[in-house]
């Protein structure tokens, strides 16, 4: 298949060239140019060789497997229409290369230039040769990138940078819209293959998603072709080197938009939406571009706006939705490419020679450069639509099409008049281009004297202009067959009859042409005075500038909107962040519930389950009322704690204790005395520990800013917190209620209840679970507890309290002041004695509590109690001593080695487990029996008791270690701060020594 191979080469060569060119040394201007030229020429020759295969509606297709899973293959497809574009891209590419070789100055880094140019050529070929829509979008975006790089080529100029950015922003955004549009089309058709899409026109047009798809695709096409209201980027892109403007912004890239419109017309055209959107955009652009072009002072500005206008003309033709319109559109694409490219090159020559492109400074250049002037004049005449030039022919077809009836509407009726007016404008600006630059007095203030013109620079212009002439005079013989091939590829078999003749007789279109020509000349005469006055910009439209709107919206988006968004949704403060997380979760839950309410088959399970109703029992009722009171009190405590958390930590902590107490009572009532006991002790120990820690926290995070302190705001915030807390509490209560009143899901509690005694040898199920059934878990838990204690200790070891905590507590200070006021000799007495009675009681309680702990431990296997509870009780004994006597007093008398307790506990537990291995049982299997001990009575002796002993020891060790860590803060900080405190004890207490030494 040589054809498909040729096709692959056409696409692959430019990219290969792009890579090669990029790696060539910087000063190889000629090699670069030869390379680029050779690539373009090769493409042109290959295209020529492929021509026979695409005539008469035939096409070449070749597929390279890429993503078979998704039906994404690299499909190359060349029909007559694509062939025409291939020739335009490679042909004009060749001429532009030749031109650029002489245009670019030796200082410019041409490596980059030719590399980008070839890359662009490849991407553009990719667009026209794509047989797959996704692939088309891919190359589409690639052209945007290369165009960005080429426009910004002279990146030292601010204009080039801005222009490049704007072009990229507009066209790449359009490309993304196109992507989604194409995805929708693919979704409708079920394939992204272009051939499949093209035959599925009816399916697409009747689909619900047709309009979104159409709008998105049009956004892509219209941005690329610089159609109103996206036309503003093209004049800005003129900051690019002139060869780039000639190539990208007249002949090829901007044509991609209209190319796509024609390509997809069979699939998506033929609807009112198409007519209105495409037609209106085209008409406005045609007229607006022509109008703006008249008033430009920059040569390239004139050409840029004229390009916009001509693209509008093509868009309008496509929008008219008739086969003849398509024919005219395709014909005009060819013609426009030739004359506009030559005009850009001519403008480039003028710039190159004189150093300026300002029409106000240029005049009489005919004398200096007669050949260029002649060529430019012919090309400009073609642009104006003067007979015997190619522009005239397609303009005639265009006029004929506007006169014909389409969709019956105001737009259709007004069309002939508006286009004649716009054509008149184009005559005016063409005339201005010719007259203003080449005629008149010799130029006086040129930035530089024209150097000799390299004759190779004129050759491309001459070639293009002769094409204009040839097509203009012998249309049927020169362009005819190619146009026919292209048209047939788009329209298939139903190509309407059209004739490519110069003379059709006196017809309405001819009259319109004449009117435009005459009107244009008259308008130019009328405007000459105004134009030479040197005003910038066009009258009447100064304010309504879409570029300004673009800039403004960019600033708005990038600054104000963004800032507002961040301010609204982003904050660096933690509390609002927490509030937002909780609030959002809450709202989401409510919203989902609301949306999928009962009407959607969702049943609310928050009713009271199916608990069997029992007879009314007055005692039970009384207890329940009482319990309800406890719960209310507990809830009030919890709310109060939340409310006070920020303002009065002590109160909050005490209230927390109240809430915990309510929980304990509830446990006790619901036949879980063991849990209640444990919970109670945990409450006590944690509260005491936190109380001790509280002493060392700074009193305030920051001082209140009294001046800006607003009570209302503060109340509002606290109210909000209260609401959140209440909502969270209610939510949890609701869950608890709902779950408790339903039958429990197949729970394992029955298993434990049944086997606690038979297999674990105990009747206290909770304890049996802890030390036997789930012994392994407990081992893990106590390990964690030990680790936590060590961590707390390690963290507090080097903790230095905030300065305001180093002071003695306020109460003590006040007390000492009162003491000082007493008669001599009594100073300090009151303070020392203030805890005399409670202290004594606490000391006396020490052995009592220990006994209780042992008792709790021993009965744990069968009755509420156990190692954990006993351990906590034991630590309460220690805590009381610390509270009553102070750190020094306790440690001078008691040797506690908490780290050893922890280690010992862990060893006990682990060895019990390992012990069962010795008897061939799995880890932690327990053995039990009852023993009669003298004096004490029957005592359960299970191996689990040893395990429980480990738990006990560890809990004591861990709690005491944390306690010591906290208690030592007082020693550390009072020492430097207070001179009147008794001197440190001579020999540090052993516990202290051990703790400090680690």
């Amino acid at each position: 298949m040589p054809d498909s191979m040729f096709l692959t080469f056409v696409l692959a060569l430019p990219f290969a060239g792009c890579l090669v060119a990029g790696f060539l040394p910087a000063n190889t201007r000629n090699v670069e140019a030869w390379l680029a030229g050779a690539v373009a020429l090769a493409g042109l020759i290959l295209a020529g060789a492929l021509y026979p295969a695409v005539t008469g509606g035939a096409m070449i297709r070749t597929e390279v497997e890429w993503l078979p899973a998704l039906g994404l293959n690299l499909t190359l497809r060349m029909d007559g229409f694509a062939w025409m574009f291939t020739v335009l891209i490679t042909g004009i590419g060749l001429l532009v290369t030749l031109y650029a070789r002489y245009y670019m100055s030796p200082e410019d880094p041409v490596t980059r230039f030719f590399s980008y140019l070839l890359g662009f050529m490849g991407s553009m070929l990719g667009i026209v040769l794509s047989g797959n829509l996704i692939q088309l979008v891919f190359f589409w975006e690639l052209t945007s990138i290369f165009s960005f790089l080429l426009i910004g080529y002279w990146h030292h100029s601010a204009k080039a940078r801005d222009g490049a950015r704007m072009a990229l922003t507009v066209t790449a955004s359009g490309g993304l819209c196109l992507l989604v549009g194409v995805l929708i089309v693919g979704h409708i058709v079920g394939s992204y293959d272009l051939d499949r899409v093209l035959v599925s026109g009816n399916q697409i047009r009747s689909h619900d998603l047709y309009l979104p798809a159409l709008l998105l695709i049009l956004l892509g096409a219209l941005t690329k072709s610089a159609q109103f209201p996206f036309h503003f980027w093209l004049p800005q892109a003129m900051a690019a080197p002139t060869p780039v403007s000639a190539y990208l912004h007249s002949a090829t890239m901007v044509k991609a938009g209209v190319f796509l419109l024609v390509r997809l017309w069979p699939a998506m055209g033929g609807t009112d939406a198409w007519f209105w959107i495409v037609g209106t955009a085209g008409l406005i652009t045609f007229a607006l571009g022509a109008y703006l072009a008249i008033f430009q002072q920059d040569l390239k500005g004139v050409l840029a706006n004229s390009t916009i206008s001509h693209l509008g003309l093509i868009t309008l033709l496509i929008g008219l939705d008739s086969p003849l319109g398509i024919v005219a559109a395709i014909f005009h694409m060819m013609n426009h490419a030739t004359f506009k490219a030559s005009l850009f090159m001519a403008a480039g020559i003028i710039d190159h020679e004189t150093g300026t492109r300002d029409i106000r400074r240029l005049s009489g250049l005919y004398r200096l450069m007669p050949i260029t002037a002649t060529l430019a004049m012919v090309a400009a005449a073609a642009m104006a639509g003067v007979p015997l030039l190619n522009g005239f022919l397609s303009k005639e077809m265009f006029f004929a099409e506007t006169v014909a009836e389409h969709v019956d509407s105001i737009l259709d009726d007004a069309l002939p008049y508006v286009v004649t007016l716009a054509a008149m404008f184009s005559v005016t600006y063409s005339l201005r281009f010719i007259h203003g630059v080449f005629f008149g007095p010799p130029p006086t203030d040129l930035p530089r004297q024209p150097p000799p013109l390299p004759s190779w620079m004129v050759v491309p212009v001459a070639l293009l202009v002769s094409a204009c002439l040839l097509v203009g005079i012998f249309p049927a013989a020169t362009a005819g067959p190619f146009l026919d091939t292209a048209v047939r590829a788009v329209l298939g078999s139903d190509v309407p009859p059209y004739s490519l003749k110069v003379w059709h007789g006196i017809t309405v279109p001819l009259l319109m042409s004449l009117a435009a020509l005459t009107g244009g000349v008259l308008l130019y005469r009328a405007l000459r005075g105004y134009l030479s006055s040197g005003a910038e910009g066009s009258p009447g439209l100064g304010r309504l500038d879409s570029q300004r709107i673009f800039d403004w919206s960019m600033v708005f988006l990038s600054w104000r909107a963004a800032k507002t968004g961040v301010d609204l949704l982003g904050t660096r403060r933690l509390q609002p962040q927490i509030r937002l997380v909780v609030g959002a979760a809450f709202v989401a839950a409510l919203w989902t519930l609301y949306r999928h309410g009962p009407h959607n088959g969702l049943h609310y399970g928050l009713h009271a389950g199916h608990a069997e109703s029992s007879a009314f029992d007055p005692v039970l009722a009384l207890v329940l009322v009482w319990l309800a009171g406890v719960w209310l009190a507990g809830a009030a405590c919890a709310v109060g704690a939340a409310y006070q958390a920020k303002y009065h930590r002590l109160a909050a902590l005490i209230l927390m204790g109240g809430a915990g107490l309510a929980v304990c009572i509830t446990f006790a009532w619901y036949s879980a005395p063991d849990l209640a006991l444990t919970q109670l002790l945990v409450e006590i120990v944690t509260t005491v520990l936190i109380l001790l820690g509280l002493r060392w926290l700074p009193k305030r995070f920051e001082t209140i800013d009294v001046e800006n302190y607003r009570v209302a705001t503060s109340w509002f915030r606290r109210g909000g917190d209260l609401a959140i807390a209440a909502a969270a509490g209610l939510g949890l209560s609701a869950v608890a209620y709902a779950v408790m009143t339903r039958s429990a899901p197949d729970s394992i509690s029955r298993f434990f209840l049944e086997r606690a005694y038979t297999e674990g040898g105990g009747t206290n199920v909770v304890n049996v679970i802890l030390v036997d059934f789930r012994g392994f878990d407990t081992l893990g838990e106590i390990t964690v507890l030990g680790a936590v204690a060590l961590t707390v200790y390690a963290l507090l070891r080097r903790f230095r309290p905030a300065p305001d905590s180093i002071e003695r507590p306020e109460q003590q200070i006040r007390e000492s002041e009162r003491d000082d006021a007493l008669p001599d000799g009594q100073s300090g007495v009151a303070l020392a004695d203030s805890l005399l009675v409670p202290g004594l009681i606490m000391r006396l309680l020490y052995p009592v509590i220990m006994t209780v702990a042992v008792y709790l431990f021993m009965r744990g296997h069968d009755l509420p109690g156990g190692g954990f509870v006993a351990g906590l009780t034991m630590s309460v004994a220690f805590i009381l001593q610390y509270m009553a006597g102070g750190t020094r007093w306790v440690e001078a008398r008691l040797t506690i080695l908490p780290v050893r307790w922890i280690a010992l506990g862990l060893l006990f537990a682990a060895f019990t487990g390992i012990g069962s291995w010795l008897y061939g049982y799995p880890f932690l299997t327990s053995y039990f029996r009852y023993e009669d001990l003298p004096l004490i009575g029957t005592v359960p002796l299970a191996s689990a008791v040893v395990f429980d002993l480990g738990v006990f020891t560890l809990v004591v060790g861990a709690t005491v270690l944390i306690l010591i860590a906290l208690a030592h803060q007082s020693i550390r900080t009072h020492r430097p701060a207070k001179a009147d405190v008794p001197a440190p004890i001579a020999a540090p207490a052993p516990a202290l020594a051990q703790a400090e030494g680690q």
Partner: protein
Amino acid sequence: MTLPAMLPALPEIFLAVFGMALMMLGVFSPEKRAFKTVCTFSIAALLATLVLVLANPGGRGVAFNGLFIVDGFALYMKVLVLIGSVVTLLMSERFLRHEGMDRFEYPVLIVFATLGMMMMLSANDLIALYLGLELQSLSLYVVAAFQRDSLRSTEAGLKYFVLGALSSGLLLYGCSMIYGYAGTTEFASIARVVSAGALPAGLVIGLVFLITGLAFKVSAVPFHMWTPDVYEGAPTPVTAFFSVAPKIAAIGLFLRVMVGPFDGMIAEWRQVIVFISVLSMVLGAFAAINQTNIKRLMAYSSIGHVGYALMGLAAGGRSGVTAVLVYMTIYLFMNIGTFACILSMRRQGSMVEGIDDFAGLGKTNPKMAMAMLIFMFSLAGIPPLGGFFGKLYVFMAAIQAGLVTLAIIGVVASVVGAFYYLRIVKLMYFDDAAEPFDTPIGKGVGAVLAVTAVITLLFFVGLSPVVEVADAAAASLLQN
């Protein structure tokens, strides 16, 4: 529990044991060499785990009585996570030494976080899910605050911890609701309850809270506020880590939960996901625009990218899951690459983080600028770079699922997003050169930079096999 029955969890068990051994190694090594030794061994351990994961014969396997599942999906995501962790460690070593943070706990914590992520990805039960999630989170809280002398870093760690704990609470609340109303924590059994019809409201509430917790972990709007602060405050290698591995793992977990047990409730949760996806994309795009700190910018960028991934999740089904997998794959490489650039931003030995510091990089360090250009274009989703394909698949899946509006919002957001990525490109190439960055940037970072740049640039070459594997992984997830 016999050994062969635990075989599916072999990589995790290996990593856990090795991680603990590493900790001992660190404690008992001489202090000067500890960091380097542990770092090297951690990388080796993670690589070995990667080999173990890849050596899995494929097919489904469960361990621990069905709490732990291994399937194609888990394997795919684990490979991504492990790559992320290994590369982060590679990049961190030099940086931490420069900043005087070279303590051996860092690599150990990364190893444990990775272990947590692997367990998340293999979770087949709400309890297992929570276990993995917390192991990961707790390790991350610590590494976020690893620069203990820096106020920003400690603040970041604390903030992350407080909010993370809160979100874990919400997640647990959701889990208990689900357990209460479905009567089980096992994914397969939940799926049976869900498909039985007549959903209890409690289950829906539970699911919403579960989503809330997961959304926090992936930092989707409106649960994103921690992200910019933590990204900015944490030491840069940690930020790099945050932006890839945990994110990928959390997205994987999100998929596993939503497409697994709750697939039958898609009507209930799709709206929520669509909503947070839209918010994430839009906020990620807009809020990034006027950032001045590159790490903060990347935080918003990652929020936006999560929005796109969630778009794939909202689409659901095989194509949706495939899209997310492809998206996360390319996201991994381009994000790591970007952070490799950020890690190389040093002037006279100290770190700079301003976006303006990129000015003129095209002149002062053309290679790095070229790599950064590739990453920025890819993050913006411009073809032919990898990021484009990620977006392409996500958009395709969304449109297939009929979520056209979502796709369009996605496009608009990526247009806005392109703006700030291109701003960096503009700074690098068009603005006057600032003082050059220190060179050399170090072998590790340099290699990462080069490799990720090449992968991002040439992603389309290997796209086909990646998509095939991702598709198979998605199919394996849907089978469960």
